[in-house]
């Protein structure tokens, strides 16, 4: 176990830190008779990217939507910046798996939509939207409609929209699952750059082990039926190396293997 790239938190509930932006306390969720989540306790540190990883049916998307305030928990509590929340709030922004772009609106209006709902004046809204459109690499596409863009470009619009409202916490629900493999890699690299640049807290849901290890500061492994936290892993990967070197790094590969060993019992 002399792997320097692998440090594991001692207990399933991660140690309390003063810098937790989001605290998840004893969250349970039942859909009728089906128990989707049982007794989830987690803390998400400011400025870090934490991934919720697990096989399908482990409730990772449900947990993310509970944190977002889109789905009510059956019991338990979510605290953001120390305050309990029950619904969506301005300090959290969501990136959807299916992009959730308005097909009748241009890229510019889609990106500025969060600000439009907050009644930000049009000039300021467009200025902010244009800045984030450029940041996600879509400059020149402001007047296009979503159906004129590729899947990868549509998700860039979704990410720009979430950034534009300047939330502390970004919640990403399998954002790259509808994007092809080549674009996904490019996306992961861009995401790391944005994490560096924006200094925000990211909570990221994926079912791809490689993706989780590549982008995360911390990985929360969930086990299915009912969803519980089975393991918390900090893959201390040196991100100063080039993306290709990271993907070949022994530490990276060991973490991937470690997680696979933990999850293989749930594979059918």
């Amino acid at each position: 176990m002399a792997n320097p790239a692998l440090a594991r938190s001692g207990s399933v509930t991660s140690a309390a830190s003063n810098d937790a932006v989001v605290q998840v306390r004893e969250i349970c969720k039942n859909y009728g008779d089906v128990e989707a989540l049982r007794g989830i306790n987690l803390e998400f540190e400011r400025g870090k990217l934490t991934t919720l990883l697990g096989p399908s049916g482990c409730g990772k998307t449900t947990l993310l939507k509970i944190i977002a305030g889109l789905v009510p928990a059956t019991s338990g509590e979510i605290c953001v910046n120390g305050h309990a929340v029950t619904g969506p709030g301005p300090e959290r922004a969501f990136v959807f798996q299916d992009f959730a772009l308005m097909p009748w609106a241009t890229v510019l209006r889609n990106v500025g939509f969060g600000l439009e709902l907050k009644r930000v004046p049009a000039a300021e809204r467009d200025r902010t939207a244009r800045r984030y459109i450029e940041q996600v690499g879509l400059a020149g596409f402001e007047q296009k409609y979503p159906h004129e863009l590729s899947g990868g470009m549509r998700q860039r619009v979704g990410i720009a929209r979430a950034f534009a409202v300047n939330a502390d916490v970004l919640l990403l629900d399998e954002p790259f699952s509808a994007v092809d493999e080549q674009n996904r890699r490019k996306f992961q690299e861009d995401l790391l750059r944005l994490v560096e640049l924006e200094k925000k807290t990211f909570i990221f849901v994926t079912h791809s082990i490689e993706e989780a290890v590549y982008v995360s500061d911390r990985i929360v492994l969930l086990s299915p039926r009912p969803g519980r936290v089975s393991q918390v892993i900090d893959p201390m990967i040196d991100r100063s190396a080039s993306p290709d070197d990271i993907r070949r790094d022994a530490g990276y590969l060991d973490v991937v293997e470690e997680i696979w060993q933990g999850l293989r019992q749930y594979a059918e």
Partner: protein
Amino acid sequence: MQMSISPAKIDNGIGASQEAPSTTAEMIRTFADERRSFWIVVSLAVLFITWEIAGRVPISFAFPTFLETVSAFGEMVADGSMHRAYFLTLQPLVLGIVVSAIVGIGLGVAMGLSDKAEWLLAPVFIVLQAAPMAALVPLVTFVYGIGLTAKTLAVIMLALPVIVLNSYKAVRHVNPSLVDMCRSFQGSRMQQIFKIIIPDASPVLFAGLRLGIAAGFIGVMLAELLITPTGIGDLITYHRSVANYAHMYAAVASIIAVSTLTLAGLQYVETHLLRPEKRRK
């Protein structure tokens, strides 16, 4: 000399010239590949030629040719009977459709948004849609006489249920992920309805409106044929009774044309005002 050349070139450009068959054929081919309007014209031409041939056979002594019908139409426009008939027919039609559209979309959207409104209203409109309305139209006359009210009611009875049920379906099929998106950015319920639900529902909403308008045309014709012999219905009945078959067909064809153009106009309004992304194809 120069002057006489350029108009000829323009003729060629339009494709009307018979002097250069190879380029004209090419022109028609490229036009047919690119333009939908070409096929609409071809489709109508086939219909009219078939009609003309059937009229000349003739398949029945009461079946006029296409050209006879066109000239009868011209005659009725010239003597003003067409205008007078449309003046009478369009009043209940427009009134009934406007009322059905406003009330129908309003009720349908309310039913889509609220379960209680659905439980309250859905059974009524499902029964109304299933009912054979032609049987109810004479009852309306019995109660409201033969005036504008009865004709307008006949239009509403046919148009309203279709519009209500389609609007309801439209709202229920709104992309839930877009609604979640609006909630996640703290949109109010009003913003959710007007910025997400109605725009996303608009294609089905408009499909319902188109069906409703078509039903409204049926309603007004039923009323004019069954209850109050006025307007276009009267024109049809009168010319049938005096065996002016070309005039009768001209009146029938004209109401079909008006109905078709109205629906096409609505489609134009929809794509150009509400869903700009559908224009670019």
